[in-house]
């Protein structure tokens, strides 16, 4: 209790605390339930996921093997993986020198990955510096903050070309490392790590591993497109699929929008609350004075909007048209590094976040729910 707390505030707080005794029996039971605690705990642990991208030699890909099912909640993993990836995008780009971005690539399909973190290929080649830099870009923005100015691989998520009817889509990079790694044909991979120690590494187009053990990635018999769609046995098909688009390129499709609670997870997980501050901004052309608290409570959830939750913040959400917001933010407490974050949530359900000229585009699948 703060010493500054007034008697009045103390009385008010004590009053509400005592009023909690009027909570319904069912809520008290629910709160006391160990089973409920276990369920929530399991879900929360699953959701605290970071994402790394690694590059591996295509030669190392092996035939997938069957693995035992896990208790993972695939939706939470997928959602958080996307959220984490996005956080990494922001973190990496911000800290690695935004000016180095190739804005031209925003319009190309061969976009660079937002999930760049560890470049095993570079390490194998003895490119120690590059490897170290890539490691520095691991998805802890706090760590990244310590390495401001370092060169890191960074890129963008770009989903201009809608797939699967407008699914939210994360486009892991089709890396250009072929040119820097001789003849080695390389395939990108993504490592999903949960803080309970579980990891999933998605290797190229047909294999994944969990704690070093291969897990099955397979092509469903009823694939409807000419392109290969691979599924992961730990993920429901409607939450995560990987689309092989040829030439060693693939897309990871995440078919959900993110909820504020997921955003919360990534927010604290990536320590944005300590690093990212917002000074001012405008919403649909109207100037805003945004406190840090508002930024955290209101705008971050909007960025990761869940249609249902959006209803709770409809005072900030236009009922029609596009929603745009520009925020003048700064990072860190020691060194103030300002940048503009331009967010546009289109009525067509496309979410575009632009940081210093680099665009990140996400496709949501339920536009009407967002705005209607």
């Amino acid at each position: 209790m703060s010493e500054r707390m007034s008697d009045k505030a103390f009385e008010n707080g004590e009053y509400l605390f005592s009023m909690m005794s009027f909570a319904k029996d069912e809520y008290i039971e629910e709160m006391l339930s160990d089973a409920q605690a276990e369920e929530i705990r399991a879900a929360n642990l699953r959701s605290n996921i970071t994402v790394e991208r690694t590059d591996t030699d295509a030669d190392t890909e092996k035939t997938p093997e069957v693995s035992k099912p896990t208790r993972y909640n695939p939706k939470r993993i997928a959602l958080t993986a996307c959220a984490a990836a996005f956080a990494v995008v922001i973190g990496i780009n911000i800290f690695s020198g935004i000016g180095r971005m190739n804005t031209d690539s925003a319009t190309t399909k061969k976009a660079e990955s937002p999930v760049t973190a560890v470049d095993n290929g570079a390490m194998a080649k003895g490119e120690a510096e590059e490897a170290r830099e890539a490691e520095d870009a691991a998805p802890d923005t706090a760590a990244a903050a310590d390495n401001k100015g370092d060169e890191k691989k960074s890129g963008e998520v770009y989903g201009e070309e809608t797939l699967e009817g407008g699914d939210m889509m994360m486009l892991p990079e089709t890396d250009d490392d072929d040119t820097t790694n001789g003849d080695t044909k390389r395939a990108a991979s993504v490592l999903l790590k949960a803080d309970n120690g579980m990891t999933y590494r998605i290797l190229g187009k047909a294999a994944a591993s969990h704690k070093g053990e291969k897990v099955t990635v397979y092509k469903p018999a009823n694939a409807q497109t000419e392109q290969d769609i691979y599924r992961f046995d730990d993920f429901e098909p409607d939450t995560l699929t990987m689309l092989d688009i040829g030439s060693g390129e693939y897309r990871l499709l995440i078919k959900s929008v993110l909820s504020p609670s997921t955003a919360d997870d990534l927010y604290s997980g990536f320590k944005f609350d300590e690093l990212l501050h917002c000074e001012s901004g405008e919403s649909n052309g109207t100037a805003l004075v945004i406190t840090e608290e508002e930024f955290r409570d209101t705008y971050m959830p909007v960025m990761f909007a869940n249609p249902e939750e959006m209803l709770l913040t409809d005072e900030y959400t236009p009922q029609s048209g596009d929603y745009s917001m520009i925020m003048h933010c700064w990072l860190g407490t020691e060194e103030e590094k300002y940048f503009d974050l331009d967010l546009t949530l289109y009525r067509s359900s496309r979410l575009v976040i632009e940081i210093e000229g680099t665009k990140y585009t996400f496709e949501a699948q339920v536009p009407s729910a967002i705005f209607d």
Partner: protein
Amino acid sequence: MLEDSALIALYFERSQQAISETDLKYGAMCRTISVRIVGDRRDAEECVSDTYLKVWNTIPPERPNSFSAFISRIVRNLSLDCYRRKNAQKRQGEDLPFEELSECIAERPDDQRNEAVAEVLNEFLSELPKEQRIYFMRRYYMGEPLSDIAERYGISANSLGVTMHRLRKKFAKKLIASGIVSERGED
């Protein structure tokens, strides 16, 4: 440990075993709640004893639908009474989240409005996602520290802090919208 229905049956039989079985099943919970509120183990033990007595005197005729809710509410209320008696002169309660809850209201409503406040509280709780409702209850019903809640539910204390802040804001909005309390001033 006995099922709650069997426990209640013992009370109806006026069996002394009811008390020992209650202590076996709910003693730890009662002590935890009470210690958090009164801040003293000896006082808490007294509150728990009084709780058992009150349960004994209440059942029968009462037959609670939820024994856990019933007994937790009794120990909570008795502990709050004890807390008020002990701290009438010296304001204490350092570990209780009074300051956090004080964000929700600018003025304490009259006691005549308690029923309305309770109604808003339950409506608010009913609208929350389950996990958020549980966090809220653990913090403001049990008086549990954020770090303990975070540990129990596998969430970072930091994230939980943000969530709790949001929940308090929602609760405050709900109370204001109901007309029970006025909007906070600049105090």
